[in-house]
Structure formats: C-alpha cells, structure tokens
C-alpha cells in the first residue's frame, strides 16, 4: 500500500453528516414511558366501580401513573399509562380478554406479559387485585 493511496482515502473518508455523538451501551437507552421505582409497593388507587366494565381509567400509584382496566369477565389489569410507541393514553384504548389496543395507532399489547402483537416495544404490566372494593396496584 503506498502512502499516496493512504492520503487519498483519508481525505475521501470524511463523514457526510455531523458525526453521531459517542453513545451509551444499549442497556442505557431509554424508551418513552415513566420511570418506575423499585417493585413491590402496593397502593390502593381507587374504587372498582370507578372503572366501568370493559374500559380503562388512569390512576396514580405512588407517583407512577398506571392505566387500570376492568374487563367484562370481571378481571382487573394494570399497565403503564403511556404507549411506548408514541405516548398514547392507553387508558383510552379498547380491550378484550387477550389484548389492549392503544387508541392512537392501534398497537396491541398482551395482558399476559405486555408484549406487543404488532411489533412495538413491550409495555410494563403491574400486578393488580381487588380488596374490599378497592383497586390495589403493586408498582
């Protein structure tokens, strides 16, 4: 390899756009959605009858906003409140026994594990149960 060749290639190899900033390891990359505190604290966020059958309502559990759903079969589910795709209000979504569908772009998420059935990032699912008519969410 000649020195002359080297010079030419260095010249030509200048990037065409301003360089991307040196980044962080992949594990540090943040997606949209609220940061969750360490798990394990339970909060009574409201009365069961505040969530009409088949619909969702948003609540705050210890500073974390959650969407709580009561399906027509009586079961309760709780998820993060904002859709990871574009921040849509998940509590305004439509539901069935398997999935929750975000109202903005119709991305669907499974209740069982929060995984998207339509290719988006997963949502966080919180344990939730009823106790004496209160909705109790663990975040």
């Amino acid at each position: 390899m000649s020195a002359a060749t080297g010079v030419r290639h260095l010249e030509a190899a200048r990037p065409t756009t301003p360089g991307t900033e040196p980044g962080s390891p992949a594990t540090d990359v943040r997606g949209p959605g609220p940061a969750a505190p360490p798990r394990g604290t339970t909060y009574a966020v409201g009365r069961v009858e505040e969530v009409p059958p088949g619909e969702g309502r948003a609540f705050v559990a210890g500073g974390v906003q959650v969407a709580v759903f009561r399906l027509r079969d009586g079961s309760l589910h709780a998820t993060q409140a904002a859709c990871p795709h574009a921040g849509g209000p998940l509590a305004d979504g439509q539901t069935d026994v398997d999935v929750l569908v975000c109202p903005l772009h119709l991305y669907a998420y499974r209740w069982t594990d929060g995984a998207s059935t339509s290719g988006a990032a997963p949502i966080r699912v919180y344990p939730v149960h009823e106790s004496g008519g209160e909705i109790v969410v663990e975040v």
Partner: protein
Amino acid sequence: MTVLGGRPTGLTSLSLDDELDPRARLVVVGNGMAGARLVEEVLERGGGDQFRITVLGDEPHGNYNRIMLSPVLAGESHEDDIVLNSHDWYADNGVHLRAGIRVERIDTAAKTVLGADGSVTPYDHLVLATGSYSFIPPMTGVRREDGSLLPGVFGFRTIDETRALLEATGRCRRAVVMGGGLLGLEAARALQGHGLQVELVHAMPWLMNAQLDAEAGAILRRSVESLGIDVHLDVLATEVLGAEHVEGVVLKDGRRLDCDLLVVAAGVRPHSDVALRSGLEVERGIVVDDQLRTDDPDVYAIGECAQHRGSVYGLVQPAWEHARVLADVLTGTDPGAEYHGSRTATKLKVAGVDVATMGVNTPEREDDEFLVISEPKRGVHLSVVIRDDRLIGATLLGDTRKVAYLTQAFDRGVPLPEERIRLLVDLSDGAAEVGVAEMPADSQVCNCNGVSKGDICGAVAGGCGSVGAVMDATRAGKGCGSCRSLVKQIVEWAADGDLAEDPAASYYVPGIPMAKPELVAAIREQDLRSVSAVFAALAPGGKEDARSKMGLTSLLKMVWGVDFVPEKDGEFINDRVHANIQRDGTFSVVPQMKGGVTTPAQLRRIAEVAEKYEVPMVKVTGGQRIDLLGVRKEDLPAVWDDLGMPSGYAYGKSFRTVKTCVGSDFCRFGLGDSTQLGIDLETRFQGIESPAKMKLAVVGCPRNCAEAYVKDVGVVAVGNGRWEVYVGGAAGATVRKGDLLATVDSPQEVLRLTGRFLQYYRENANWLERTYDFVPRIGLERIRSVLLEDSEGIVADLDANMQKSVDAYADPWGQDGKEPATPGQFRTSLPLVALPAVPVR
C-alpha cells in the same frame, strides 16, 4: 433524538465476568445490514456458545433496513417498520451492542479495537463491516470552513439523514437532487411527493447508467419527466451557492439552478479509513481473500467495505453471501467455505417504474446475441444478452413479468428457448406459470429477508392458506416489497389453484366469522342489540375481540336505531367522548356548521370558548367548519355547554359535513340555491353512522367551487331547477371523480335520492369501505337499477330504514354533557407524563 429500535426504560442485561468467560471474543465493527447479518448467521450456527460477541456501531440505533429509507422518506413506511434487529434483539441473544461508538483504529499487534470514546476492546477475531458513505463530489462551497456540509445539503444514506430530510421537506420549496442512480431517483420522487419542485442533475449521459443501456435510460428519463421532475443529464455541478444555507447550484455549462435543498446521491465509497489507519491493505475497499480475510489473519471484512477479487459491491445480496461464508469459516461449520464473487441481479421499483437487471446490459463480443423489445410509448424496454447459448445479462424496464424465469436462466444457466423472443414475451397462455414452476427450490425470491422458493413452498405445505399467511410466516415480501408479486405467483403455483381466498377477508369484522349480510341476518334473527350480545352469540367460543368492537357498534346502531343497547367499551375513544383524539391525548372539537354557514354570534361564542379554555389552535377545516384543537378531555362537557352548538361529528365513521358554495343568493354565476340544499342535507342526515365516513358537497354551478365532483355524494346545479347527483367521489389519499347517478328536477328529489344511496351504502358496504371503493365494486349500472328502477324491490325499505335512523338522531353533546354516560367518562387519561409536544401556534 429517538433511538430506532431502542429499549424501554429499566431493562438491563447480565453478563459473565470477562475473566471467567472461556469463549473467544468476536468483535464486529459496523452494525449495518452486513454486520448484523453476520451475527445472525453466527448465532444460527450455534456460535453463541463459541463466541462472546460485541458489535460496535457508529449510529446509535439498532440495525435497520437501509434499503427501506426511500419509502420512509416518501412517507410510505414508518421508521419503526424498518427495524431489523432492535436493541432488545441483541440483549436477548447475548450480544453486546455498543451503539453510537465510532472506531478510530485497530491495533492488530495488541489485538484491540480503539474507540473514539477512548474505549479499548480486545478481540480474538475481528470483522470489519463498516459499509459505505455518501460520496460528496468536490464542488466549490459545498462545505463550510470547519469541513461540515453547508446547511441544506444532505447525503441520503442513514436514518438520521432521512429524518433531517423529512424535517427539511416541511420548510423547503425547491430541491436539486444530484445523482441519477437508484438512490437519487428515489430521493427525487420522494421529495416531489412532499410537494417540492425537484430537479435532478446527473453527470452521466443517461439515468441509472450502471444498470441500464442508453436506450432504456432514455425511456426511464421520459417516465421520470412525466412525473414532473426536470432531468439535466451529462453535466456536473461545480459550485454550491449560499453563505449560511444552500441557495442553488451552478452547473459546469454555467446554468444556475435555484434550490433551498440539495440532496447528494452521487454514489457511495467504501468506508475503509479505519482499516487504512490500522495498516491493513486497502485499494478501493479493504482487500480480502476468498474467506473474507484481510492481510491480517484474524481480521475479516464483509459487505460494501470489502474488495474481493477486484470487485466492491454496493448491494445487499453480496453482503449476505459474505456473511454466510464467513459464519461458516468462523464457527467451523464449514472451515473450507469460500466466496467466489456474486452474480448480481436486482429487482426494484424506481420512481414508480419496475426495473430488473442482471449481468451485462449490452453485447460485448461480436457473436453475442442481443434481443431488444422497446416500446417507448408504454415506457417498456426489455433486452437480453446471450453468449454461447447462455443468458449473461438482461434488462427489464417497465415490465418485469419475466424476471423469475430470467433470473433462473441467469443464475443456473438453464437451456434457453430456441425462439429467443420467448425469453421476453409469453407467446402462449400459461407460460408465466411455467417460469415459476421451473425455478429451482433454492433460488432466492426475497432478497431482503433471504427467503427461497423452497421456503415459500414449505410454508404453503405447512398449512399457510393465503398469500398473507405465507408472508407472515416466512417474512417474504416484508422488506422492500419488490418481490411481492413473485411471492404471490409462487404461492398460487405451490397451492396449485387450491388457494383459499383469505377467509377472514370476507368477514365484516375480524372477530366474527361472517360476511355482512349473514351477520346482519343473524343480528336480526337472534335479536342481538348490544356488542357483548353479538360476541356471546356469534363469536367463536363467545370470545370478544377488541378490534371488532367499533365496527359492531356502528352496525348495531344502523340496524336497531333507537333500540340499540349502547355499551361504552364497544366504542372507540372518539365515540365515547364525541371528539377526535390527538397525538398528545387531547381532543379536537368541531361544532356543527351546516353547509359551512355561520353567524357573528356563533363566531363570537367560539372565540370566547377558545380563550376561556386556552385552546392551543383554532383551525378552519377542509369541511368548511372551525376546529378547536388541543382541548383537554376533562374540559369537553364544559366546552360544549359554553358553545351551545351541536356536534359536527368530525370524529366518527359517520355522516360528516356538507360543503357548499355561495350558490344563487350572492354568486353571479349560481344556477341553484346550493347553500340552502346543503343545509337541508346536513339537517336530514346529521350524525348518521356508516361503515366509513361520508362527506358531501353541493355546488350551484359546474364551476365546482365546493368540490362536489370528488365527494361521497356530490350535487351540482345545472340550471332550470335541475341537479346532478354524483356518488363515489374522493379527494383524499385516493382521488376519484364521482359517477353521475342521476339528474333530478328538485331539491326534494336530491334529498330522497341521497338518502336512498346512503342507506344502500350503509347496508351493503364492508366496514371502513369508502364509497369510492363501494361504487366501483357494486358497479354504477347495478346501483342505478336498484335505486332508480327498484330492480330488487328494496327502495321502500331503504327509505324507511333511513327514516328510522334520521328519527334516532340525538346530539351527543347535549346527551352526555350534563351527566356522564359512565363513571369518569371525561376523566383525563394522561396528565402526568411528558408527551410528544404539539407546537402551539
């Protein structure tokens, strides 16, 4: 900046302490299509047990499909859809991805990779997959003093450049695209689609000169120019004008082209500077042997940065062949694997024209056979080059039906027909299928996802009963999409005519296996008046389906009118709160303004409401109304109360609005009172739900000021008290002039005929099928005979059913305003977290 394919918050990965890990260290520099593909191939061969894999990527993103940047720029694909390997994928597969790190140099003696961030990464095996960068030809003024590009000048190679271009389309008017190759043409087409005036400058005498001969290039030029893109050939740009921002370019012949956006797509160059700085042998690219090894035995190079036997490839297919061979070598699956060069064949759609090329495009020796079929008027140019009875090249422009057969002849050297014309033209019926039938099972059909004909046939044999199911199962056709018609042909051939139409395609809603007539009959017979009752009685296993609820609610409202039993969870959020949800979770409020006619008092009230509730934007709509955007959900009832106007239904799958011109009262050309007729139409049909929205217009003369020719129902006054009624028009994503249904003698007849047509549409259209699809599907003649001659004896029913819906109308804002239909109907769903900000103007 949003990281494409990034990970959600809070996920971390555990890894073994380096000291304790006995696996060899495999480091890949470059996280593009070649690098990521190599990692996939290594993992597929069980390489996860052999290697600790680290990938260093210059871009902060996951791996994405670079081929698909053109559709992203054109707005046809969303950037999320082109992610091939997200950050999650790397974590799930135990691959350490360090994205956003530029590599400075390799110390081949110490076997370490030195990053620009100061990091030192040791390796046992190193793979360079650094790809290419956009070549910016030397032009006066293209760079600023610090070496950066003049603002307004862009390459077109990365997602960040694509995002920047997309952002620029919003404020730029005139673009010059430099380079008439594939990328340049796609950029030009995409920018033009965003409404920019586009000129294309190409240094060579014809477009796509690397792939096409002069004649084909000339035909392509005509096709491109017919799109409204000016093409300047055989000329270099010598200077870029503008001090702070690009203002134009000067061509070598002295012409000046004004522009505020300059896209340079004048070819790419291998990214070989890292190799060069590290003392590896570099000519045009990084020189590698048949095992993709550089002159350092532990350093390999693949993809567009590699130079093999003198060739550097700028296509994805050779990169993937590199990845396969190198994975065989590295994992020991086939230690003797060798790469012997690629025979490149490409199929693509450029600026709306189908192009397929393989091998050479012109004869090179005296006894080469050369067959050309040229139809410039149709934009078709086909040619083949044959040597010693073997196909050595083919160019198909404007018609790529024979591509499967020719690819196979080119790849495998199968015998050619004696009548050479049969290579390009089917002289008898059925020959096209022969092409697919003769393709060997291992020939690759989808180059983006590496799917062979055999894979597709396997999916069909494995039970996939439709083209869509095969595409889902194999990912064939899910990359750039250029192979979709071939995939369809193969699926049809493999299923041997036994291909079921996707059964779900005929369902009215996905969760109930019934077509509309069956479904409506079952609803009536079993007296099903609520969405949950329909699921319980008709869905498989009685199982509800979220995606079916909105369609069922609409259908039940139509069937039962006032006797419908509403369930809020069966409604889409817009219908639950009678407003249109916006990207930030707020809503838009459009009060009814019949026929686009308002009063000073109404305007005053709207202004007061806008101020009182701090409405961020007040906008005049395309439907001649006023939109209050950004209203908080919890404010909706109070806003309606203060407005004191009924809902304009701007959120529903329903009758929306009637646009009108000023008609005969003021206009000196008006032939009929279009304004009053529009108000009457809107009064009668307000709020009527339907399979998809219905937009109407009435104009007082054929000058068509309110665009009645392109409405679901459009009414045009033609004088002497006569009115034309057009149906099935559209001017949205689809543009279609409506078909003339009838010319009638009075406004009363317009009202009657409109009601009849709308009811026929409501009862027979598929869910979300607009009239512009419905009318051609049923056929204008049939609609005429049903509605005008009562050929099916249903006109009286249609009139009666429509009357029932009209009688069931109640203004939803008046209904729920005082007393919520369900607890918390208007409670906010998202007040606490930051949302994508919608700018306040």
